[in-house]
């Protein structure tokens, strides 16, 4: 069963093994390159594709004050030429070899993805090594990215969901880097220079901050060579201090952003439980029952199915590196927003008081355990899942541990977590819409 295709199947079998059934060794291997760069590998040769996903831990939350958006601009600039190639030449090489390469910045990391056909792997490695080692970061590209970023900011400023999320984060995390706008402000974006990019990159790109996951048609020896060629030249230590843990402001309350829009959107949130805490999985089961957004979830049934107040409503745990939340959203007609929020509050309060039924807990657990393998059906999805697990601090056995931990959650666990978390008077809410009708 060590056939190549078996490994991918093996990973999914691990995921599928419910209720603590012991499974042989995880098919996720830890690989260390000759020069000492480490990675997780899921080897599977059944399709001639590979996916390398990696992160430098440290994102917008570590930007200097006044330079908001720097991480995001840097992520865009990484595709703007490297080594001997200017932006146009670099993009032509990417397209000609059909290598998919992308970079995104979040609050806590810059994530890179490289995916391609096996027969183009050499070219992919050469391009990636140039980006990580010697990105061009040229002024001409910077001006283009700046113009695009400003246009995106202007768009976001008129986009109800972005307005709501920005307001929610600004109030919930006032005084912490998480409260700043991750994508920057027009003023901060206008002030970003090539020197800022170079300095942020030098502080962030290090072997200490690096996490790598490789999936697909690549063996350990080839991966080792790849890791050395791309990453071995980076500084060993991280030169950047992590931000402090971010507590939610207790006094944030409810805010209304008055906009003349055809519908209203509300973001609502509460403090959550971090992924490292033993009750994290009880929180996951609770959120599934309440806010999965699927039919049969409490919020959707109360708001949509029983009352037709909205098309969608959901709530999920969100574990950023330094803050843990339960964050929900509902979009509705202006004149139904107040009613929808009231139904949400009552539904959460009732759940805090009464807890779930045994049947709900069993069904949520079956879903959470059973649906995981559905999300592990392509190399890219496996790489995404494993990198997220790495960034959350889990080990290579995470998938099995997660399945067992969920299987072990009891109704009492969910009861306890619900009573603790669902204090609706502490709920932080932002509504974007017409003031008169949403109260």
């Amino acid at each position, binding site marked *: 069963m060590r056939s190549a295709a078996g490994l991918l199947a093996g990973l999914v079998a691990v995921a599928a093994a419910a209720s603590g059934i012991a499974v042989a060794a995880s098919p996720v291997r830890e690989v260390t390159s000759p020069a000492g760069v480490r990675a997780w590998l899921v080897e599977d040769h059944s399709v001639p594709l590979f996916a390398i996903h990696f992160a430098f831990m440290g994102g917008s939350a570590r930007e200097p004050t006044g330079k908001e958006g720097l991480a995001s601009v840097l992520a865009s600039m990484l595709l703007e030429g490297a080594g001997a190639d200017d932006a146009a030449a670099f993009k032509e090489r990417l397209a000609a*070899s059909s290598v998919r390469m992308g970079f995104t910045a979040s609050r806590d990391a810059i994530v890179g993805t490289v995916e391609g056909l096996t027969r183009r792997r050499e070219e992919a490695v050469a391009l990636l090594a140039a980006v990580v080692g010697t990105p061009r970061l040229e002024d001409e590209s910077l001006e283009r990215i700046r113009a695009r970023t400003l246009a995106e900011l202007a768009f976001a400023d008129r986009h109800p969901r972005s307005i709501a999320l920005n307001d929610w984060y600004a109030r919930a995390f006032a005084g912490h880097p998480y409260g700043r706008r991750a994508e920057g402000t027009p003023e901060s974006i206008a002030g970003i220079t090539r020197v800022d990019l170079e300095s942020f990159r030098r502080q962030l790109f290090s072997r200490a901050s690096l996490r790598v996951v490789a999936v697909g048609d690549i063996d350990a020896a080839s991966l080792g060579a790849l890791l050395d060629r791309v990453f071995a030249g980076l500084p060993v230590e991280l030169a950047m201090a992590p931000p402090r843990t971010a507590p939610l402001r207790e006094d944030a309350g409810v805010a209304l952003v008055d906009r003349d829009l055809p519908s209203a959107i509300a973001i609502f949130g509460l403090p959550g439980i971090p992924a490292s805490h033993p009750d994290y999985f009880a929180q996951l089961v609770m959120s599934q029952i309440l806010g999965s957004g699927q*039919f049969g979830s409490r919020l959707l049934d109360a708001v949509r199915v029983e009352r037709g107040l909205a098309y969608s409503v959901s709530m999920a745990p969100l574990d950023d590196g330094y803050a843990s939340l339960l964050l929900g959203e509902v979009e509705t007609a202006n004149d139904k927003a107040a009613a929808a929020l009231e139904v949400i509050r009552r539904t959460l309060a009732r759940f805090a008081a009464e807890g779930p039924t045994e049947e709900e807990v069993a069904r949520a657990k079956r879903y959470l355990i059973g649906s995981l393998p559905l999300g592990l059906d392509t190399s890219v999805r496996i790489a995404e899942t494993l990198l997220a697990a790495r960034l959350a601090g889990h080990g290579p056995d995470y998938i099995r541990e997660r399945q067992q931990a969920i299987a072990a959650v009891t109704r009492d666990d969910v009861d306890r977590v619900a009573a603790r978390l669902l204090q609706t008077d502490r709920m932080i809410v932002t509504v974007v819409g017409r003031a008169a009708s949403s109260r």
Partner: protein
Amino acid sequence: MSGMKLTSSAVLRSRAWLGLVALVLTGTIPASAADARARHFTLDNGLDLVVIEDRRAPVVTHMVWYRVGAADDPVGKSGLAHFVEHLMFKSTGRLASGEFSRLVAGLGGNDNALTSHDSTLYYQRVAREHLATVMALEADRMVNLRFTPEEVAIEREVVIEERRQRIDASPLNVLSEEINAALYRGHPYAVPVLGWPHEIMRLDVDDARIFYERHYAPMNAIIVIAGDVAADEALQLARASYGQLPRRESPTVSAPSRLPEPEHGRRIVRADMRVSAPTFYRAYSVPGAAGATGHEAEALEVLTRILAQGETSRLHGRLVREGQLAVSTEGGYRGATREAQVAIYAVGARGVEPDRIESGIDAAITELRDHGVTEAELERARNTIEAKHAFDSDSQLSLAMRYGEGLVSGRSIASIEGHGARLAKVTREDVQAAAARYLAPGRAVTGWLLPAEADARSADGTQAGERDR
């Protein structure tokens, strides 16, 4: 369906065709062998079954495609096909309202549904051992839906909310709806899938029931299963579930009303306070794979990529990198069905007049029509499309989607699996010919979204251009 609606004899013909293909597949296969993987069966009651084995993970994707969609909405009852899709999650004789999805989630599965102009799709993704269960559930709601007035009334509110959230909340989607209405004037595609609000509000329980009884039957459905199941086993399971439903003659469907060849380009300009930068959105009416001959669809696919997709495209080079007229450009060709569009999109740079942006786009298109593309561009486009195809094939959902979308549009499995071979045939001349023929000004509807100034607001607070919504 109507864009590619088949008369019943055409359905029979295409079935025979599919059967032949399945036989051929076991024998010698042409160059695109890597793609040839689906098997097709037809049950006695007329139901089509297509199985694509993918044994890598113990998971299956199960889809039911009905050959009915928004293009079949009766006049004055727009949104009905989509409304019935919503009602399919309500009570049947056996299941309570909402129980379908609760059961699937309880199995650890996901489910969803999707209505287009030509088809209505329901699908579940579950562990392989639950395939029989979801087949039984789908077979049940294919014929046993109850339609109570209460369920219908609440769901109508939900659909109105969905429309508000999906269309009205997005200026670009509002524009896109109007571009479609102009591009397909006089054709059912001109009416939005979600329907017009004033017509949705009048849909009632009888409308829904009549539509359902007319269109939901084994004869009018295609089951597509991709995943960890042998084709023969899937066939046994289908016989035990769908096979138990009685045969009912296929609903009489009208012959496809073809679009007239467009001759006069049109223009739609909207101003909206939510728009921050002038945004260009043009759609050309072109054939999709089910309406094209030879490798014309693939030539259009290559053309769109060279012209507008990604940062190596002509538009990005001319407008963003060189001219600094736009901050971003994109394009797309979604061509699985009979009628398709080539769409082009650009967000203007600060302070640049929309006229200059449009002139820049037109110049790039004229250059392409007059002088064609380079061999390097063709090669790059082909590589990118091949890679995308390979990545899509790696995903059960995309794979099942590719077959279902093709089959429901009346294409054969051989045609669907022949994509790579046709792509290889595309020459520079083909691409230029496609540009010359299809990117003609007369085939386009050009849309502009412009920022509205605050003082353009009318007294009652609504934006002038939106008053009728």
